[in-house]
């Protein structure tokens, strides 16, 4: 924190640090938490504001006067049909159960990624670093390609698929209605600090599908006695309940909250430990086991429990993660809220790996090569499809009905103003 304080006092980084701290857009003239600027928590993170000097115009709100005169919810649908005088928003979106996607999550949900070409001298050139300023201003996250809120074609390998894109394809009225409220290091312990940056007005806005995906940081820390510092099941319950109560006070009626189980990070060591880290590929001299060990020795290992050569510690970390997931499952079955239905989704990455192996892929191709810790672009895209298909099959009411007017919306409004 001392280092951060010094770096943050430099003019170059001041704005980035303020943005990280508040998790709201740095450039937001009307202070509605939506921005027309891409990075610094702008529209890479939340739907682009189509009017940044009017705080009553932003993505996700219920249309004002059916948007006959202006696009109050930025979904690109507005005006009225000259033939019958009906506003298009009313014609195409009324009763279609339109809603947005919000993700409350950690670095995996924000899509942390350090480009491997930054570490590969063999192919290094000026173009390898052309995205460096963007990466810094987005906290080394790439929410614009992520599992939950991705919307741009991936420039970091793989392809983009996301729950937002599937929901938008399902109902074009949902265009631009996404919020990525995720942060590197996010856990049930610290979510409370940035949960308030979520922008949803209970009275004015559309319902939302909120995914709660804290998949590891409650059991991941950089301390040598890592097991002692993990979130306990008791604290997990207290934290999650507090956050769900906050959501119940802020989400519009008809919303859904889906709790995602924690990951089983034994996958990391099992599949990477004897492989070469990008920095060790040229001379075959740095394996992930060495890389993890170096980070642990410096007390900088992001997940001492799983990125650890000691199998007992890895197993105990998984055991705690399973206990915390059980807490989430138990909350889902035992507690009811007034404004949203609660759901639970488990074992996402086991399912992703099983599907990837059926395609003939290798498990290590699903992991971020530089940090050896996060799921990568391929895992995210496959994960989005898996969640979509499973929820659609088991609880179709969550996504609502498919909009029968999608083709007409495309015909009339094209790409709806883009993203």
């Amino acid at each position, binding site marked *: 924190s001392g280092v951060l304080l010094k770096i943050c006092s430099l003019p170059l980084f001041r704005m980035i640090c303020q943005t990280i701290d508040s998790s709201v857009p740095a450039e937001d003239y009307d202070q509605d938490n939506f921005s027309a600027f891409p990075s610094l928590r702008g529209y890479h993170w939340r739907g682009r504001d189509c009017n940044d000097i009017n705080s009553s115009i932003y993505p996700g709100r219920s249309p004002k006067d059916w948007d006959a005169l202006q696009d109050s919810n930025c979904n690109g649908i507005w005006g009225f049909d000259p033939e019958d005088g009906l506003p298009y928003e009313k014609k195409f979106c009324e009763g279609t159960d339109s809603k947005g996607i919000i993700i409350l999550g950690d670095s995996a949900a924000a899509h942390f990624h350090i480009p491997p070409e930054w570490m590969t001298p063999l192919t*290094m050139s000026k173009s*390898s*670093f052309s995205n460096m300023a963007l990466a810094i201003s987005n906290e080394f996250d790439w929410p614009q390609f992520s599992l939950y809120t991705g919307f741009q074609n991936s420039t970091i390998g793989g392809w983009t698929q996301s729950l937002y894109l599937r929901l938008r394809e399902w109902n074009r009225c949902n265009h631009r209605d996404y919020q990525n409220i995720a942060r590197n290091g996010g856990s049930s312990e610290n979510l409370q600090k940035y949960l308030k940056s979520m922008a949803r007005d209970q009275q004015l806005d559309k319902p939302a599908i909120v995914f709660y995906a804290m998949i590891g940081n409650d059991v991941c820390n950089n301390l040598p006695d890592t097991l002692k510092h993990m979130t306990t099941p008791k604290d997990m319950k207290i934290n999650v309940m507090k956050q769900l109560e906050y959501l119940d006070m802020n989400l519009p009626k008809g919303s859904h909250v889906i709790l995602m189980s924690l990951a089983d990070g034994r996958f990391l060591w099992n599949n990477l430990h004897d492989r070469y880290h990008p920095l060790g590929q*040229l001379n075959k001299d740095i394996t992930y086991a*060495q890389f993890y060990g*170096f980070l642990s020795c410096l007390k900088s290992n992001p997940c001492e429990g799983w990125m650890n050569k000691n199998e007992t510690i890895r197993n105990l970390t998984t055991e705690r993660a399973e206990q915390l997931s059980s807490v989430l499952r138990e909350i889902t079955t035992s507690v009811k809220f007034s404004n949203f239905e609660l759901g639970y989704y488990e074992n996402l990455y086991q399912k992703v790996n099983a599907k990837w192996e059926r395609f003939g892929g290798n498990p290590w191709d699903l992991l971020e090569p530089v940090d050896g810790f996060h799921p990568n672009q391929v895992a995210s895209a496959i994960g989005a499809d898996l969640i979509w298909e499973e929820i659609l099959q088991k609880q179709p009411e969550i996504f609502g009905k498919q909009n029968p007017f999608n083709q007409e919306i495309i015909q009339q409004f094209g790409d709806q103003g883009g993203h």
Partner: protein
Amino acid sequence: VSTRDSCIGCVLIVSLVEQLAQVHNSSAQKAMEFLCSYMPEQGGLQGICSLIAELFGPDLIKLLSQNLKADVICYAVKLCKAEPHKPVCHLYEKPMNGLKRTIKQAEKIVRTSNYMQNYKTF
């Protein structure tokens, strides 16, 4: 700057410089110039890189010419620090002569450099 952050950053950058020199069959100085020229100008990133190269460059050139590994070099220029009674953290395999001994030898190489003199004063 905390030891662990400066140490990781140093080992990373010196490894890259070392490998760039190897790939381009060039001197360490040239490799540093390559690396900085690849950095984008936005946000002053290229300037920051050049500043680091100016500060540490002469020592890095001397140390890299001795075929030392990045982790040993970073201990020699004090960006990594061994804590008393704790193991010395290393990314690469330990050198044949032992890690502590190799670090001591590397420290001797740069003991009289401008940077190390300023470091001591600071």
